[in-house]
Structures are given as C-alpha cells and as structure tokens.
C-alpha cells in the first residue's frame, strides 16, 4: 500500500474552517480518523455518497471535522438514525463513529439490534475504557480494577467485550486493533467498507487526559505500551487457557461473513409483499 502524506489526506478530507479539532494531545481519535480517511482514499470512494453519523462523546465529534454529509445525533442513538438514512437512500454508504460508552452503554440496545438486522453500516468504535468527554467516568468496557471518577476505587463490574458481542449478534465483519496496529487497522476498515451488512472495527485508543491520568499512564506512549502488554493476537489467544487470558484483550479479525444486509432483505420484502398482494405478475 502506498501511503499518502498526512497533509494530503488532511487537505482532501477535513473541513478547514472547523479546525483545530477538540482532541487533547496524545488522543488516539485523530489516528483512527486518519486510518478511516486513508481507507476511503485508497478505495477511491465517492465523498458525496458517504454519510458520517455519530452520537455524543469525544469520538462522536469526528463527523464535524470531515468534509462529508454528517449527522451528529444524540448520545447512543447514532445507529438508529443511520437506519432511517440507509433505508431511505441505499446508495449512501454510512460510517458511524462512536465511543465505547456511546455504543455499548446508552446505545447498547440500538447496537445489538442494528447488528441483528444487519444494518448496512461501518462502525468505527473508539474504545478508550472511559467516558472521555464527560471527564473520565468508567465505561462498560473498563477492565476490572481500572479507575474512573465514578469508580475511584477501581471498577468492580465485568466489562463488555464489544467485538465478541458483535460477533454473537451476527455482524458480517468484526475486527479489533489498537491504534498502533495502523496497517491492520486501515486494512480492516477497507474490508469493512466494502462489505454489505453490519461491519465493525474497534480500536483500543489512548485517552491520556480523562483515562490515563487516573490510571497512572499520563501519556499516549505509556498507554500504548500498556495496550501492547494487555493485547493478545487471536492466533496466540487460541492456544491460551482461560486463566492466562484473564485481564487480556484479544485483537484480530473475529468475523468475516456475507449474510445479506438489511437493505437487500427489505428490497426482497417489498417484492414479497407485492407478490402476495397480487400487485406483481
């Protein structure tokens, strides 16, 4: 893959009048945004046929900075809005940029149902184990013992494994990487964007300001080293015992299948309806 300079990508896809971004120094959201834009660029997708949707949170501010149609909605509800956009105009490709709290807590129900329906959307999920925008409360992805302002003594609940949740709910494509797996990340996004149905690429992303600071990792490099320590590639994980995997996060490609997407299912449904009513010979 030929890598264009970051300037080229920026000039082509970002809204100059909206810069600078709101992201803190060391935040991983910018990197994931770059991966996504590189994937779009590499695939040569038409900028006017892509709509970005998001909910509320730092991650959800991304659609504001890119020069595409964008719908910045309410906390957790992006995929429900996306359902209306996609079914109304199936020619539009939809990218949903979401945070882990946004997607898995308040939006958990919409998330699993969008997957169940196999809504044609590519979800780029920023998992930073925390609620960045509201200042570092624990997210439903936070591993046990991690601190947040609402669990100052360390998280006592079990975390969601979002990627696995998506696999069981029926997503067509699911991958999880950290922000320093950039090649795998870009490739996964490319794959996701080319597929019908629900696709998800989850990124473990550093949030030094709201999360790292409270967990003795004040900078992005510290967080990245920690991600390196706690992540295990899928192939290796398969040979590890449950005890060995305790507190670890598996990364890799979890699902790659081609079940029909919601748009195609609905188009078939229309045909069936007309046939059953005798409207079509």
């Amino acid at each position, binding site marked *: 893959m030929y890598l264009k300079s970051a300037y080229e990508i920026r000039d082509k896809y970002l809204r100059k009048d*909206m810069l600078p971004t709101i992201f803190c120094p060391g935040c991983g959201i910018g990197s994931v945004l770059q991966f996504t834009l590189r994937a779009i660029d590499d695939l040569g997708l038409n900028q006017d046929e892509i709509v970005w949707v998001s909910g509320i949170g730092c991650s959800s501010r991304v659609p*504001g900075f890119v*020069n595409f149609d964008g719908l*910045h*909605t309410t906390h957790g509800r992006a995929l429900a*809005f996306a359902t*209306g956009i996609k*079914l109304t105009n199936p020619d539009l490709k939809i990218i949903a940029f979401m945070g882990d709290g946004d997607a898995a807590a308040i939006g958990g129900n919409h998330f699993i149902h969008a997957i169940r329906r196999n809504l044609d959307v590519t979800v780029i999920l920023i998992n930073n184990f925390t609620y960045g925008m509201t200042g570092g409360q624990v997210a439903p992805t936070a591993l046990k013992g991690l601190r947040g302002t609402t669990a100052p003594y360390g998280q006592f609940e079990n975390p969601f494994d979002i990627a696995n949740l998506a696999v069981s709910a029926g997503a067509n494509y699911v991958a999880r990487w950290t922000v320093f797996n950039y090649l795998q990340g870009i490739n996964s996004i490319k794959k996701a964007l080319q597929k019908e149905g629900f696709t998800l690429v989850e990124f473990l992303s550093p949030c030094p300001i709201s999360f790292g600071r409270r967990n003795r990792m004040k900078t992005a490099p510290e967080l990245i080293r920690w991600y390196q320590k706690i992540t295990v590639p899928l192939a290796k994980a398969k040979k590890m015992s449950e005890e060995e995997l305790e507190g670890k996060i598996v990364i890799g490609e979890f699902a790659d299948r081609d079940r029909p997407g919601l748009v195609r299912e609905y188009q078939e449904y229309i045909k*069936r*309806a007309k046939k059953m009513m005798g409207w079509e010979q």
Partner: protein
Amino acid sequence: MRYPFPVGKSDFIQGDEAIARAAILAGCRFYAGYPITPASEIFEAMALYMPLVDGVSIQMEDEIASIAAIIGASWAGAKAMTATSGPGFSLMQENLGYAVMTETPIVVVDVQRGGPSTGQPTLPAQGDIMQSIWGTHGDHMLIVLSPSTVQEAFDFTIRAFNLAEKYRTPVVLLTDAEIAHMRERVYIPKPEEIETIYRKLPQNEEEAKLPFGDPHGDGVPPMPIFGKGYRTYVTGLTHDEYGHPKTVDAEIHERLIKRIFRKILDHKDEIISREEFMLEDAEIAIVTTGIVSRSAVRAVKILREKGIKAGLLKLNTIWPFDFEYIEELAERVRKIYVPEMNLGQLYHLVKEGANGKAEVELIAKIGGEVHTPMEIVERVVG
C-alpha cells in the same frame, strides 16, 4: 401511482387507519415505530401499505430508535412519521428536541391514553397536552394539531406533513384512544384533490452552504438533504448558519433559537386553525380541543335550548397558541369553560390568554370517559 386502499370515495374506518392512509397520500414513505396501545393500528396499517408503495415500514427496538430513524430518513429526503402513546412519547422527547434544533421535518403521532406511567392503555385521555408542547428540554417551538373526528384525523395528518415540510419542523398530531378506535365515515380523496408540500431545497451552492441560515427571510432555511454533494453537517449542538457547532456564543444561540421561534410565530395565522360554533353572540364560551369538542357541540345546543347564550371554540391547533384571540374572546363573554380529559392543562393556556378579562373555569374529567354533554351543561347552569 397505485394505492393500496380506495381513493376518491368514502370508507368506514378507524382513526388510526385514517392516519395511516392520510400519511401515505401526503407522501410519507418512511415509517418507524414500536407497538403500543392505542397507536398500534397505525403501525399495522403502515406495515401493510408501505412496501406496496415502495416505502419503508420498520419495527424498531424502542421509541427512541423510532423517532431517531425517522429523523435520519428525513435527512435522506423522505417524508417520515412515527406514532406512539404516552409512555413512548415520553421516550421520544430527547430526539423530538433534536428534530426542533436541527429543523427536521417529521410527524409524530401521539395517541393519548390515561396516564401517568402505563396508566390506562385502552382508554382515552388528554393528559399529554403539556408534554406535546413542553416535553423536550430547552426553549423550543413546534406545532401541535388535535383532531376530534376520524375525518379530522385524516385531514390533519395531511396538514401535519405539509406544515412540517413547509416550516422544517416536527409536528405532533395529538389524538386519543377514542378517535383511534372509533369507526366513522371518512372521505379518502384522490391524490390530485389534496395539496401536498415538499420542503424547500437549496437552489444553488450558496443556499446549500447555509443549511441553518435564513436566505429567504422567512426564517425557514432550504434543507440540503444528504447525498446531493452539499456535505452538510447537522448537529444538535448550538450551531451557526453553516451548521458549525458554536456552543458558548450567547449571540449565536439566541439568534438560532429565536429564528426557530420566529419561523413559526411569524406564520401563526397560517398555522393556527380553529372552529367557532354559535360564538358570535355568546355570553358563555366553551373552549375545547380533540374528542371533548364533540360533547361540547351538543352541550352548546342544549344550553341554547335552555335560553343560555353559549358558544364553542374548538382548537384544531393547540400550539402555537393564540393567546390574543382568547383575550379578545374573554372581552366579549362573561365566562369561559374548559372541559378537558385531564386535571387542567389546556385550562392554564386559556386562563393565561383570557388575561383576567373573563372568569375561566375548568371542567376536568379523568378515568377514561369523555364528558357527556349533560356534564358540561350542568356545570354551566350551576
């Protein structure tokens, strides 16, 4: 275009069915909902009709998702509707505000039932009047219509779509379980007999760049729908004319919100609809909305037979509210009665409008029955 129901003739149908048929004729091609009594039949009818007219009907996971989906559909260019009852309407409030803030044309039907909470699922009430006007947070303005017959449920649904599109705003159609389930004769017009309005679209790049501006001076910006190459950013955050978030600028916030008020209030005369019955020489005015209006018509006739000069004002539009008109009315009459199926919601608006010029008395009734004409008569006679 072929329709999945007879057009150009009358049919004997329920209120919910009438709303669904009207929506289809008004051009609605996206419906998202979640089942709830007494609104489910609207959904069931839409589920039958929509695929046949190449529209979408989808059952979402809840009401929050339903209103979200129709807002998304509207930005993709569809006329879109959802329908629910009190509990579901409560869930929709956050996104109803989002539709106000992003100036998204949608129609939300609330078939009222007895509340609060799950209350009386199968019985009518008028307990959501305040919720329909003030349910979402912040300063906001929208339109609320209220039918009193099945024919009106049909006609007002078409009007709801037209107002939503014309003013780029959510419109609430506030009906109740009685109208929802009552069968009446309804004239279903041919499509060419009805006026249908579609939102203003940008005519050039310049207009498209100002999705929240006021290029025509009427307060209603053309709506650049998605996929046309305009690259519009839509946010529920306070935004400037270009759609850029500007969350701490007092002036921009005030300008945006005041325009959202202005675009509706400046067109109040077109939006507000009411009917008067024997009101010209009345000394006693009865002010109603929705289903209660029907008992009130009869009550007025009985009162007239008794020699009491009573008259009825039926409000077809509940919001925006014509406070000035009520004040004028209060100057003409001795007393105003407000029969409604709650413990006083419309009453507060009427009282404010009357501005002390006439005594205003509430005739409240809850529990799931519409006032009988005699209940109104007896209160007036004393």
